[in-house]
């Protein structure tokens, strides 16, 4: 490309579009422009040639952002047009040197962050091109080979990676198949022994159960287990009683049948923890295995399912008879929980009975009541609940100990500390007077701030999502915090009258629509409709007026600007500056090249300038001098 490309004929539009598309600070090409480029390039061969030349020109710009966007466009066209490919591969080495920057004397231009992106992107697309069109274009193969074999660039290796993953997955599958087959072979050998094992356990359980039930029939009705008193005073308790009676029907363990129960428990455990999972596993193995011996598989599967059903039925029997271990342990746990709860209630970790814990205590005590129904609080469960609800929640303090209202003196050393060997006079009979005790025991409370839930701002963000900043009243980015719906649109509340009206009218509108759909228009709605129509007309007139004013203003501004540009460059600049100050500063390609001043730079500016370094050197020297003089004061 030594010669500049001949100026394209005026009807060629792609170069202009390409220039526009690449002159942007966005990380992607504007999709609308890209579409426009594609449709324009599709129009004729001439356009495609012009596009290739224009893209090459853009690639030569000393700005990585421009090149990056140009690479995007090139990729789009390259994947689509054959003519573009044929035209473009001829200069592929140049394109690669500009996009990958593999030549030492032609490094990629700033900004460096985008240059890195540009390089990785170009390498990626080169690989893609080579994979799809490498056969047809020697240049692609050459470029790819050169970057890969000579310069040892790291290619993402998409295709190979995918193939390798596939291979690995296949191998893994093969391995699992092999394992399954091995297991299957194992099963073939051990099938009978497994079956007999399980059968043995099941038989054992059956026998134990049989013995237990026979015993039960011979037995008298046992009194209920300790800890269950019967108090027929409340419905709740009656219910409990019924339950316990039912419980009483079941076989219960006692000293006579203990041996049977132990054996039963053991074999039950064996059955549930060992045989059942193993049977499940065998079933899954049989289902998954791809064996040649299908008849064996089917029969084995059938038998295993039967065995599983058998085990489940035995388990059910056991649980019906109430001898399963699981129930016992469950009750134990319940009691444990109660104990713990009691301890917790009296010594909470944070020395404060917060609301939930208090509630729990209530629950606990009520449950305690229901189970134990202790005599003291038996008067009325409801009363107690009411009282508890009314009772104030106090922070833990010594006051809560059982000395309420006692007016006696207290020995200072009532714990019997050994104070004999201390210096000084010791009065073992020292007494703290009652008023002092009262003073010490005065109940105190600390002010505790109510935890306020600070709502997030929830304003919609540009990049998607909602603003999660939590401020009390005013978000620094999105203004006052107002309630918003899930999409971040403000839910209007207590707004100026007009807005309210609008909202109302909208609601009304909705209602109206609904109603109309039901063919139920009432007078009220008609009236509303009329009001809304009038208001809408008012609004329309207002907005028209506003638009007119805006148009006039814009026109004036344009005229002024034109005049300014025509008069002097200085004034034009001033006007421009004015506009710039009003507008937010827009990122441009040139601004991307500017180095950002970081805190480090500022500190370096302060610390590394010559005056600072000189002075610090001087200071250090002085320090050294004085040290020396101190160390050798007798020397001059």
């Amino acid at each position, binding site marked *: 490309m*030594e010669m500049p490309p001949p100026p394209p004929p005026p009807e060629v539009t792609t170069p202009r579009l390409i220039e526009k598309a690449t002159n942007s600070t966005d990380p992607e090409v504007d999709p609308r422009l890209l*579409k426009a480029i*594609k449709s324009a390039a*599709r129009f004729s061969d001439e356009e495609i040639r012009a596009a290739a030349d224009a893209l090459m020109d853009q690639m030569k710009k000393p700005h990585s952002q421009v090149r990056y966007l140009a690479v995007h466009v090139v990729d789009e066209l390259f*994947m*689509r*047009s*054959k*003519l573009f*490919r044929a035209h473009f591969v*001829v*200069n*592929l*080495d*140049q394109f*690669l040197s500009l996009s990958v920057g593999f030549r030492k004397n032609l490094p990629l231009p700033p900004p460096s962050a985008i240059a890195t992106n540009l390089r990785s992107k170009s390498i990626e697309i080169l690989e893609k091109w080579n994979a*799809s*069109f490498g*056969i*047809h*274009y*020697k*240049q692609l193969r*050459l*470029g790819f*080979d*050169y970057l890969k074999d*000579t310069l040892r660039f790291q290619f993402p290796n998409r295709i190979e990676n995918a193939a390798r993953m596939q291979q690995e997955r296949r191998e893994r599958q093969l391995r699992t198949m092999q394992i399954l087959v091995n297991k299957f072979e194992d099963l073939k050998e051990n099938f009978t022994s497994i079956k007999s094992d399980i059968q043995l356990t099941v038989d054992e359980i059956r026998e134990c159960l049989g013995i237990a039930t026979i015993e039960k029939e011979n037995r008298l009705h046992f009194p209920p287990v300790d800890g269950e008193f019967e108090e027929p005073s409340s419905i709740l308790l009656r219910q409990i009683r019924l339950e316990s009676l039912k419980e009483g029907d079941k076989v219960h363990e006692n000293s006579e049948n203990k041996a049977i129960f132990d054996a039963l428990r053991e074999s039950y455990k064996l059955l549930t923890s060992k045989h059942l999972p193993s049977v499940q596993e065998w079933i899954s193995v049989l289902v998954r295995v791809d064996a040649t011996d299908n008849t064996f598989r089917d029969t084995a599967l059938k038998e295993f399912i039967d065995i599983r059903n058998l085990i489940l039925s035995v388990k059910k029997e056991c649980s019906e008879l109430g001898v399963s271990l699981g129930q016992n342990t469950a009750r134990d746990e319940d009691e444990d929980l109660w104990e713990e709860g009691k301890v917790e209630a009296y010594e909470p970790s944070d020395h404060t009975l917060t609301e939930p814990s208090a509630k729990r205590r209530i629950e606990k005590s009520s449950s305690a009541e229901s189970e134990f129904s202790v005599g003291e609080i038996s008067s009325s469960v409801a009363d107690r609940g009411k009282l508890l609800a009314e009772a104030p929640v106090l922070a833990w303090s010594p006051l809560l100990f059982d000395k309420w209202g006692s007016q006696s003196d207290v020995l200072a050393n009532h714990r019997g500390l050994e104070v004999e060997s201390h210096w000084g006079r010791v009065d073992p009979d020292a007494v703290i007077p009652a008023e002092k005790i009262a003073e010490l025991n005065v109940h105190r409370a600390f002010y505790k701030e109510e935890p306020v839930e600070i709502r997030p701002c929830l304003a919609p963000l540009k990049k998607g999502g909602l603003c999660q900043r939590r401020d009390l009243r005013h978000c620094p980015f999105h203004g006052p915090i107002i309630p918003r719906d899930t999409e971040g649109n403000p839910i209007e509340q207590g707004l100026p009258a007009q807005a309210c009206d609008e909202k109302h009218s909208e609601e009304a509108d909705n209602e109206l629509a609904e109603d109309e759909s039901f063919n139920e228009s009432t007078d009220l709605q008609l009236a509303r409709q009329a009001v809304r129509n009038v208001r809408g007309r008012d609004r329309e007139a207002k907005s028209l007026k506003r638009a007119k004013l805006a148009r006039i203003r814009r026109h004036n501004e344009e005229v002024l600007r034109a005049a300014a540009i025509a008069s002097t460059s200085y004034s034009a600049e001033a006007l421009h500056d004015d506009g710039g100050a009003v507008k937010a500063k827009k990122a441009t390609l040139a601004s991307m090249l500017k180095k950002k001043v970081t805190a480090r730079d500022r500190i370096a500016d302060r610390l590394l300038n010559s005056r600072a370094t000189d002075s610090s050197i001087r200071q250090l020297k002085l320090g050294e001098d004085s040290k020396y003089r101190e160390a050798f004061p007798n020397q001059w």
Partner: protein
Amino acid sequence: MWKEVRDREAGKILPRLFTSRVRSRRVAALQLSNHKEIISAHRGAINSIQVDLTEGRYLLSGASDASVAIYDIQQASDYGERGLIAKHRSLLFVDKQHEHGHKFAISSAIWYPIDTGLFITGSFDHDIKVWDTNTAQAIMAYKMPGKVYGTAMSSIATAHMLIAAGSADVQVRLCDIASGAFTHTLSGHRDGVMTLEWSSSSEWVLMTGGCDGAIRFWDVRQAGCFLVLDQLRSQLGRRPPLTENPLKKVNASRITPAGKNSARASPSHKRVLPGNAMKNSTASTKRHNFPRGSAAQRLHPGMSSSLNRATAHYGAVTGLRATSDGMYLLSSGSDSRLRLWDVESGCNTLVNFEAMRLQTSKPLQLAVTHDSSVVFVPCMTSIRAYHLWSGVTFQTLRGHYESVNCCYINWHDQEIYSGSNDRKILVWSPISSTVSEMEGESKAADQDNWSD
């Protein structure tokens, strides 16, 4: 094209004209060949390539990793990628592991011009070796005083079998394959000799280009060089102007009078080569290309005349190539210039080859078409084709990723082979309409794909 075929059948155009037209048209349509691929076995820069002169079938390449390889360019060893791409793998490969292999980079590898049974390599390890192709054994070795930059054999020689070798030493040596010894030591250059070329019209004339920027012409039958090309002596046009007597012009352009020359030169000739003077007279009458030779011959080689100090390029002369008729010589120099010399008058023809940038550190191998119309010059990473007579860029062949060192034109098939620092040997061939038609069916993947 079909019209031309008909014309030839009708006898309207001569067969030779027809072939030359077809050939030039094909050369004009050269591009990187997608269907012919030479799988380079080298792991270093390719410094020299040549196709054998007898069959036009075997490509010899020498590379910087001290390896030399031979490829069959007619018959592909296998076809890859669905049979679309013919791959040519090396038939013979000799590298450092070989017992006679060179130790350092091979700077030049040339075929023995008579048949393909021998080839010659020159290397930076100061050796020139003659190899038997069939056994892949070195059968002869010459120890040179410095790194060998270039070797050359005359393709038209019938009376001698001399390898001309240029090295980092100032002397050009001629090695005789028949005797296995140096027959000549040609001194005159003031620096190493980069490139050598035998005249394609006279088997006795050798042209050498040195790092001192001089191009010297030697007649191997007599001592000393008889012509030093001077870039400041120029003529307009391809031939010297007819109005002037060429002999007179040459004589006039010499600074020392011819008579004086002869008086001083003849005794020295007698002293150095007693048998040569007698031959000289017969030779000078026979040679038609050098009519003013009688004056030039008598110049003493070591004489400090201003003529002897003339330079053809500023900097080193990196490449020499004579046209196939032997009338013109092309030279490239490290001053990034290409010059076309009229051999007969020894003048620069002042053809202005368009701007180029040439590699300066290595000898370059230029290629000229047989009808002397186009010259192919390795210009850094590309190969440029220039019209020989106008110097206009005619084509730029891009494909290499590092500097190209050598190119060779296969006039029979109108193909160009190029070797480069990126270790590749690329084939450039004319676009063939039949091939593109043939692959039309299988090329389903390479189509427009406008999804939107």
